[in-house]
């Protein structure tokens, strides 16, 4: 009995090993081919950023790499509150770029290695599925009964902006779900599970024709300012923060629907 059990057990181990290798092979293709496995060294810079920066940061990183031959910039995106928590818990990072100033408050002093630089602004927009099943035309339609509305959780900047917007407009809509970051909110609208979601206007722009945007008039909207700062003492970290304020990057941010860097 004992001896017979060995063969299937070995087979199982081999199968698991094969499965792991297959998964590893799959990820290999997606990851950067060069020094993706090497530890952080002089040639890599790690940027942790808010999820609303997912699309726009790619060309910004490309142009920075172009200016610094041999450098590879690694990016990771999460809710701003998660980014700060990760850095406080010691995640290896050189730069953080967040979607709201209040998210920066919990960042510990000994991880701050430079001045905070506000490099962009953003405003909310109502994202609706392309066929707009609930016929949303403006903020006031969010009061409608039976509407499935998703917003960001209050610990992330888009959630705080949403709360400010609701408070200022005296809106108390029926919310279906508080999503953990702005992209999760957008996804629920993209999939058609929600009739409307409050996201940044840049998220609607980045989603292309997968969702439609309903504008919130300027005078009723709220503005989020995006801070960035170096969280390591490497010179390149500060250069990346400065790069965000360069004319080239500012033009790209405006193209993507962000507001330009506010007066510092």
């Amino acid at each position, binding site marked *: 009995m004992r001896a017979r059990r060995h063969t299937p057990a070995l087979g199982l181990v081999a199968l698991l090993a094969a499965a792991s290798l297959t998964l590893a092979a799959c990820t290999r293709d997606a990851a950067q081919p060069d020094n993706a496995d090497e530890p952080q060294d002089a040639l890599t810079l790690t940027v942790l950023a808010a999820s609303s920066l997912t699309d726009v940061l790619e060309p910004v990183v490309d142009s920075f790499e172009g200016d610094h031959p041999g450098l590879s910039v690694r990016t990771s995106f999460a*809710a701003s*509150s*998660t980014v700060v*928590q990760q850095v406080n818990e010691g995640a290896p990072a050189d730069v953080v770029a967040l979607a709201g100033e209040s998210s920066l408050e919990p960042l510990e002093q000994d991880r701050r290695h430079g001045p905070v630089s506000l490099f962009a602004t953003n405003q909310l927009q109502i994202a609706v599925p392309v066929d707009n099943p609930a016929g949303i035309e403006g903020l006031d339609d969010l009061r409608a009964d039976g509407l*499935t509305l*998703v917003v960001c*959780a*209050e*610990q992330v900047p888009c959630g705080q902006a949403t709360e400010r917007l609701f408070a200022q407009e005296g809106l108390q809509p029926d*919310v*279906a*779900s*508080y*999503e*953990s970051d702005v992209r999760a909110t957008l996804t*629920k609208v993209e*999939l*058609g*599970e*929600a009739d409307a979601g409050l996201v940044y206007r840049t998220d609607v722009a980045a989603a292309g024709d997968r969702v439609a945007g309903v504008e919130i008039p300027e005078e009723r909207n709220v503005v989020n300012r995006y801070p960035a700062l170096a969280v390591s003492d490497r010179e390149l970290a500060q250069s990346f923060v400065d790069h965000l304020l360069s004319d080239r990057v500012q033009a790209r941010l405006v193209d993507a629907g962000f507001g330009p860097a506010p007066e510092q």
Partner: protein
Amino acid sequence: MPALIGVAFVVVPLLALLARTDWPQLGTHLSSPVVGQSLRLSALTTGVTMVLVWLLGTPLAWLLARSDHPLTAWARAVITVPLVLPPVVGGVALLMAWGRRGVVGGPLEAWFGITVPFTTVAVVMAELFVALPFYVVSVEGAMRGLDRRVDQVAATLGAGPVRTFVHVVVPLVLPGIAAGSALAWARALGEFGATITFAGSFPGRTQTAPLGVYAALEQDPDAALALSVVMLAVSVVVLGALRSRWLR
């Protein structure tokens, strides 16, 4: 030595959780709304899930244990998929089936105006999806160990299949049912990935205890730790009951 490393690897994080917990203020943290609401919701949803697990899982396990039909092996394989499937994939699958544009959810909304995602029902469905296989697998094991002559004797004494099942089979495999229930319940209680994907997160409606821990961690870490300690205590109690009574 490797054995010690293995033990330490599991024990250290659990001790760290206890060490970082703010014990003197534990009562205060436990009374924060996120804790009470999410624990109540978890108790409710896992309770309903377990009733469904018993009602659906017990006959299913019996069928798998006694049927010789060639499709049985396939059914057994399919039902165990959620055991190994990443839960978030289960959530996506549920969304594709029961979402407003889903295979089942689409007609459901068009004809009856019923939408499933973002409701407490969706939470129960996510929990049932991940927990049912644990129950079925362990109860089927117990039922297969049952001597076939037991059903035959019951039949010769005039009991129909349903009566045999309810009055003979179920009482005999009660230990298996209890062990399977504990495993399934613990899995339902810990369910995160499928829930946040399929049901979203709304306090009191779809934000169960694990989702509460996740949401509170960035805002009120002490409440997150307090909630974690409660879940750890519950897990230990379940495990202790299992080991002392049925696993030995």
